[in-house]
């Protein structure tokens, strides 16, 4: 409904025309003859407006596009150059590739979901309400759907619901650490140890308190029990020290590499003593940041393992270049699953119960009945749904035009958008016409199929 579904829906007549064709009423017999003995001029008058419009705005443009596709931007004859451009220009190649992805993925997934929904709702009393909810998105414009999904896919998990859910699920399984963004400041005794860990530059000695200053943990994310940092007491035979945030709000680092009272310890931060690449001892800091390690740690280097600093998980870049096409396809499925569901449900309703019953009596379980009886019986409807969706997907425009941010526009390109850009952006009528012709060629099989079916029905 949303987009020119004239083509699509019409290819689907089962639901509409089933009533007509399935039931061959008495009046159906014999060829319909003019009841009125019409004069041809009157017939012509009835047909004229339709034929003029169709001729001028549908037929003529097809011819024009075919012709124009052999001329270049300036209007000079250029043979098949435009078609070559179509498959050599990077942007258009991406469009062709994406259209292929769309053609394969979107109709299949949409139909599969539609089938699942139709089958499952068949036995539920409030199935109609469910169907209504699933179907509703189809009534709105693709532009509105695009705006809706721009909001859904917003990358900030505080604002985009997709990422909020995703991060929520993720965080229940993988806890984030307490000290994200912690890092050594300038002139620190610590250095990077690869993989996000930090290690002291020098080995530590017993009885000499060690300082392990870091900066950059956002104040809002500091553990609630953090207390003001204290220098550690020397303890002969042990390695003691302080792990703390060497940064005071509004003041900067204060005394560099020494805990000031306004600075906070890192309660619970993990500290490892490493000797020759092996962890010989480990501990966690107290609320004031102090810690102590047994004598095994003497002579070792102290390390903050990377697990302390794991960044909070920020979700997925739905609208980033790599996921943009799947993300848009997702919004398409949201819109069109209802269409598939409804048509399939109608088909399902006309599956003869006796057949299913017979299969069950023969000992088939529900899955087998579904697989062996229902699906084959539904095959014609499924085919019609898939073909309709394919035609629809072929010319997908609005969603791809609206959803991707500037940096993903390239990667999300499809033929219809490219055609628009070529025709009305680059003003290259040649290439635009070539794309139009390609789109047209791709629907010709369906066109012929429709015409053949019509003729067969006519003969019946």
């Amino acid at each position: 409904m949303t987009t020119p579904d004239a083509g699509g829906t019409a290819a689907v007549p089962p639901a509409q025309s089933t009533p007509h064709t399935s039931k061959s009423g008495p009046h159906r017999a014999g060829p319909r003859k003019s009841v009125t003995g019409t004069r041809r001029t009157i017939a012509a008058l009835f047909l004229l407006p339709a034929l003029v419009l169709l001729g001028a705005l549908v037929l003529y443009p097809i011819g024009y596009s075919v012709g124009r596709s052999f001329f270049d931007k300036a209007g000079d004859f250029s043979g098949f150059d435009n078609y070559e451009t179509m498959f050599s220009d990077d942007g258009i190649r991406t469009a062709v590739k994406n259209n292929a992805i769309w053609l394969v993925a979107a109709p299949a997934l949409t139909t599969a979901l539609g089938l699942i929904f139709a089958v499952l709702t068949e036995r539920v009393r409030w199935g109609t309400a469910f169907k209504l909810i699933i179907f509703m998105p189809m009534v709105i414009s693709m532009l509105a759907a695009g705006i809706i999904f721009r909001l859904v896919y917003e990358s900030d998990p505080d604002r985009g619901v997709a990422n909020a859910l995703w991060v929520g699920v993720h965080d229940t399984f993988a806890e984030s650490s307490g000290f994200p963004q912690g890092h050594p400041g300038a002139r620190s005794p610590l250095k990077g140890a690869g993989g996000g860990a930090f290690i002291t530059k020098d080995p530590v000695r017993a009885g000499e308190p060690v300082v392990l200053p870091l900066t950059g943990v956002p104040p809002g994310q500091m553990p609630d029990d953090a207390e003001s940092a204290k220098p550690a007491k020397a303890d002969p035979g042990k390695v003691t020290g302080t792990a703390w945030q060497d940064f005071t709000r509004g003041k900067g680092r204060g005394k560099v590499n020494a805990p000031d009272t306004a600075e906070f310890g890192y309660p619970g931060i993990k500290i490892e003593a490493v000797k020759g690449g092996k962890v010989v001892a480990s501990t966690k800091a107290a609320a004031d940041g102090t810690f102590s390690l047994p004598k095994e740690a003497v002579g070792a280097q102290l390390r903050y393992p990377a697990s302390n600093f794991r960044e909070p998980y920020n979700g997925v870049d739905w609208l980033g270049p790599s996921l943009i096409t799947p993300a848009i396809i997702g919004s398409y499925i949201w819109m069109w699953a209802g269409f598939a569901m409804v048509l399939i449900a109608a088909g399902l309703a006309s599956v003869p119960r006796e057949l299913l019953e017979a299969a069950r009596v023969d000992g088939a379980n529900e899955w087998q009945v579904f697989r062996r009886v229902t699906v084959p019986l539904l095959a014609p409807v499924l085919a019609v749904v898939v073909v309709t969706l394919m035609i629809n997907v072929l010319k997908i425009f609005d969603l791809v035009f609206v959803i991707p941010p500037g940096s993903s526009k390239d990667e999300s390109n499809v033929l219809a958008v490219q055609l628009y850009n070529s025709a009305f952006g680059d003003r290259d009528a040649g290439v635009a016409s070539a794309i139009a012709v390609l789109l047209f060629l791709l629907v010709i099989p369906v066109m012929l199929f429709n015409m053949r079916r019509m003729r067969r029905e006519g003969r019946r």
Partner: protein
Amino acid sequence: MLGLSACGGDDKDKDDGDKAGGGGKESAATVRLPELDGEKVSVAAVWGGAERKVFLQVLDEFEKRTGAEVSFVPAQDPIISFLESKVAGGQPPDVAMLPQVGAIEQAVANKWAKPVGAEAQKQLDKNYAQGWKDLGAVDGKQYGVYFKAANKSLIWYNTEVFENAGVQEPETWKEFMKTAQTVYDSGVTPMSVGGAEAWTLTDWFENIYLSQAGPEKYDQLAQHKIKWTDPSVKAALTTLGDLFGKKGFIAGGASGALQTEFPASVKQTFTGGDQPKAGMVFEGDMVSLAIAETKAKVGTDAKVFPFPAVGDESPAVVGGDAAVALKDSKGAQALLTYLASPDAAEIWAKAGGFVSPNKNLDLKAYPNDVQRGIADALIKAGDDIRFDMSDQAPQAFGGTPGKGEWKALQDFLKNPKNVAGTQQTLEDAAAKAYKKS
């Protein structure tokens, strides 16, 4: 028509009153406009949202004074292609607001643009510095009237973040990097980059380049008289790469920045209390428009400092929208005259988010100190201003999403170590684009 033509009887009465009173009595008017009763004037511009709304007010005043009926035609970016379709369709607007020097040149080359008339020229001579007039001229002939200027050499910051980190506004690039480091140490990501819209990235490059390599090289590069493989470009990209490549300095990392559109890049700097997603954001004065959509107030929560000097001096990169007449109509010329006057500038200046290149506009018209400061700096820069380089370049290179400089700099943001590769890509794209034009 946007319902602009609300000028019924009342307005005309007012007009008559004015006319009767003669020149002396006109309260604020500094410019005389012809009577254009019922004449239709159409103006095309790419402005939307808040900008469009204010511009409509500016046009309202013109309607009131002349009796003309003005319609606003929302154009699509790039406006030059949009105009091409209009001209091809035989219905060009009377006036178009062209956002690029390159667009003016193209409009002249296509023979669409009409030179400014005597009245408008008078206003220009009176109110504009030579630098601004030159930007609107092609081959010595004046076509464009710069109505709206943009100071693109500004860095906006969240005052609370600066306070918490205990830092001051930096003046040089070195200080700037140090400030950023301290902000980072305080637990806030220093920079927000709206990399989804690549023009923000070209502006980054241009400011660094102008300050580091100097105005002469800047002009040469803008005209592609030196290549993008030049060592000066390497130096500028390396400087920019230092910032972009520093771990933790860019909000969301490179991939996050590439998905952040300009308004979002501003908003995330001024929302989130004392834990915003970033502490600073770079861009021109239009940042204040996006701030207005948050709870932050310009002047208290959000302040601004000039782009730090990478070389000897701070850069002054400007942009602007020039009105160009596309029809030889009386209405079009009158509108240009009006837009070149302080009267028109004042209306938008008061509404905010606007800087006028008009030196006779009273600075009092600006709504706050921040805006006034920006305007003052712009007027004081006089003829030393440099127009946005990417806007001077052929559209295919400097102004098309997913192509040329835009694409190259987005890729550079992704991989800031790739200086040489980026230079090569830029040069290849530039060579192609400049040859064509």
